[in-house]
């Protein structure tokens, strides 16, 4: 519970810094989304055992992090739970798939271990790409870009509402948690009964608050579509960005910079 304030402030810091890097205004969000998708698809088309050709994707992302000056610690903090989930998925591979893939002297690496590390790297690259996209572009411009890319309006609006509702939910949860703690007299245990009350109160309070927010939106003409500044004109620099990105992806996928290591193995 004590982490709720930290989570709220982190979400807010992403909102504030949705341009930590200055990239927010310099690259068209549509271009960012498309390049991110192409980047990920190009990586995912490699074989699950192809760890050598996955590593350049990790290096590329690390370079992007340095260029955009997004702190690596921020990425790690935000991706740790998802990475644990990826780890859970990958952990069974070394147990199931024990056939030897590489033999260097007496040292043997099984296909299971290869796919284990590849899945971890792929997970890291996918999560980091998504985080860089959100942090550098901002959630709302991203949603508007998705709309521009023909994602149904109803889905985009739902995404925006979910985003808004998560913040409301966290704020209310933080308030209830503080109220419970302030009268807990140092009793650190949250009993099941207390959890039940907490969840019930949370649902009631967030529902009421969401209703007020909805009223406020309707009062200002909301008709089911969230209209934001659609400053998404495709500029020359966006074309330039996309060409460079596609060239890099081409090198990663077709030229394969670490291909020679693959041949050695």
């Amino acid at each position, binding site marked *: 519970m004590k982490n709720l304030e930290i989570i709220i402030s982190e979400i807010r810091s992403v909102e504030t810094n949705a341009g930590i890097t200055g990239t927010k205004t310099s690259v068209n969000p549509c271009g960012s989304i498309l390049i991110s998708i192409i980047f990920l698809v190009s990586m995912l088309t490699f074989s699950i055992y192809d760890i050598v050709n996955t590593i350049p994707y990790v290096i590329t992302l690390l370079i992007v992090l340095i260029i955009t000056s997004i702190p690596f610690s921020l990425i790690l903090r935000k991706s740790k739970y998802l990475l644990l989930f990826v780890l859970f998925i990958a952990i069974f591979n070394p147990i199931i798939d024990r056939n030897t893939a590489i033999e260097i002297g007496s040292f043997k690496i099984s296909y299971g271990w290869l796919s284990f590390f590849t899945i971890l790297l792929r997970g890291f690259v996918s999560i980091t790409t998504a985080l860089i996209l959100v942090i550098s572009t901002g959630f709302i411009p991203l949603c508007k870009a998705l709309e521009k890319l023909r994602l149904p309006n109803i889905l985009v609006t739902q995404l925006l509402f979910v985003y808004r509702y998560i913040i409301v939910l966290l704020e209310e949860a933080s308030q209830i948690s503080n109220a419970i703690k302030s009268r807990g007299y140092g009793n650190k245990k949250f009993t099941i009964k207390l959890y039940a009350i907490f969840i019930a109160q949370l649902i009631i309070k967030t529902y009421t608050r969401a209703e007020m927010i909805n009223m406020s939106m309707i009062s200002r003409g909301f008709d089911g579509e969230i*209209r*934001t500044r659609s400053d998404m004109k495709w500029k020359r620099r966006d074309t330039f960005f996309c060409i460079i990105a596609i060239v890099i992806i081409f090198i990663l996928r077709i030229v394969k910079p670490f291909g020679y290591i693959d041949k050695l193995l």
Partner: protein
Amino acid sequence: MSHHYIKAENLDYTYYGGTKAIEDISFYIGHGEKVALVGANGAGKSTLLLLLNALLFTQRGSIDIGNTIITEKTASYIRRKVGFIFQNSDNQLFMPTVDEEIAFGPRNMGLPNDEVEKRVDMALEAVKCQDLKYSVTSHLSGGQKRSIAIAAVLAMDPEILLMDEPSSNLDPYSRRLLIERIKSFSHTCIIATHDLEMVWELCPRSIAISEGKIIYDGPSKSLFYDKELLKECRLEQPYLAQIEQMKESEKIRNCN
């Protein structure tokens, strides 16, 4: 400009579950009037404002705003004409940045981008918060949030302003700024509040509500001098009224 009036006749509103919030309320508010809506918590002030903004619909009687009767069909037109500033600014501000927040209403009105930008700047100027244009809404102080909530409504260029407890949770400095800003508005204003000192300064007329019914509609000063009525509304006589009364009684004593 004489069409910015509000004429409410025999309004009734009962919430689901049977709580009667408004009972047989009628009043007329003319163009440019600043009227205070006073009464205890749960008296029905907020419900009445929601009815006037077409966010709830009266179950009996009618509300005529500038020759338009509030119905579900006219609701969106009414919401353009009547701006509503909610009690809790946190509930009102839902966009990530101040400029997006203020532009929300004008964009929904279908205005072109240039006009939206103009309105954002004008609204920020009206509340003297130009420097907050690109700030993140959740990082603002209580007073700043209230100012931005007002600017967000002003940007829609409403003819009538409804304010629900505008001075609550504000520090004295922010409250003073707010009062000065409201003073400068030429809009027809209805202010639901417990802050009678603010009413003293802003609203020549007050409507007092108790248990969903109007129990007083007249000059604010007369209400403030009527201690019995104030008690009935669970309100306290404002200090300014007390001082004025003391001065008057002193004058009478001196004359004698």
